[in-house]
């Protein structure tokens, strides 16, 4: 599944720790703060720049010298967790 960032989510760095924070208008559907690893932070930034989940899978595969099939579950599970918490929405949703 492809996703896009929910409007009103802000990524901030606190002492090098990347956090996703909802603005008030986004907090109704996304009430919590998420802590991202460095890799997850890259995936988030890629999504914000319009890259697809598949692009991030390819990026991660290249980074780890793994086949895309092995990289995909890592990337997909990250975005699924973000979707459960409301930080991303399906790309087809307006």
């Amino acid at each position, binding site marked *: 599944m492809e996703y896009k960032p929910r409007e009103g989510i802000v990524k901030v760095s*606190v*002492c090098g*720790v990347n956090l996703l*924070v909802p603005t*008030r208008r986004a907090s109704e559907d996304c009430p919590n*703060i998420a802590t991202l690893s460095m890799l997850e932070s890259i995936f988030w930034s890629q999504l914000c720049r319009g890259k697809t989940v598949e692009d991030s899978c390819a990026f991660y595969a290249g980074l780890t010298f793994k086949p895309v099939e092995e990289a995909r579950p890592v990337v997909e599970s990250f975005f699924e967790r973000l979707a459960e918490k409301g930080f991303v929405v399906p790309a087809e949703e307006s």
Partner: protein
Amino acid sequence: MKHTKEHSFFKLTLADVTVGCSFEFPETHRYFGDYVSGPFPGEGLSLSPEDRAAWEKNIASMDAYNEYSAFTLPVSAELMKYGRCVMHAAAFRFRGRAYLIAAPSGVGKSTQVRTLSELYPGEFSVISGDRPVLEATEDEIVVHPSPWNGKEGWRGADKAPLAAIILLKRGETNTVRELSVRNAAARVFASIFQSAETEESIRRTAAFAELLLKRAPVWEFENGGVPDSSRLLYEVVLKEAKQDGV
């Protein structure tokens, strides 16, 4: 924001910063005690419709007490422009330094402070029961009292430099451990009052959280029950205070 004639205007002074406040309810200023003086010439802070809506999720209806309580949001946002903010924590003074016990409402911040004071009389004094004002100076964080002191109304008079932040949570056992910055960042950030209205306000809060994490250790304190948990906290606090040469 435009106000009706019915609003009352006061100066609110916290941690040496004075801001103007516009209260909807004529009795609201009384809850601020001698932190307010008046009148304030011109328009001051007031609850935005968004602040109000956010606060009204947890209350039956807006009244003077709830306006006073909700004013934490615009005041903390305004104070951040001056290197200060309001934090959701019980603040106490021990051996000349301040300790913050942060947790959501109802987790037991006040119980810990009360139990420590009962177990070790005379060693602790309260700075703020619920929402101290934090000031970032060049090399330390100073913890100030505030008019928001929780249901106990514990209000201190003295400010003190911050020694540590203790993130309290309920648990089955009593444990205290120092947290890595990674594990502490989100929880410290979330303990700072902010409107989260804009990206800029979130970035300001993040900058303040970063200062806190750079200048004070953060402990996770799992409370399995007082008074044993308080004794454990005391031992950790004492040990750290001695190490700091206080």
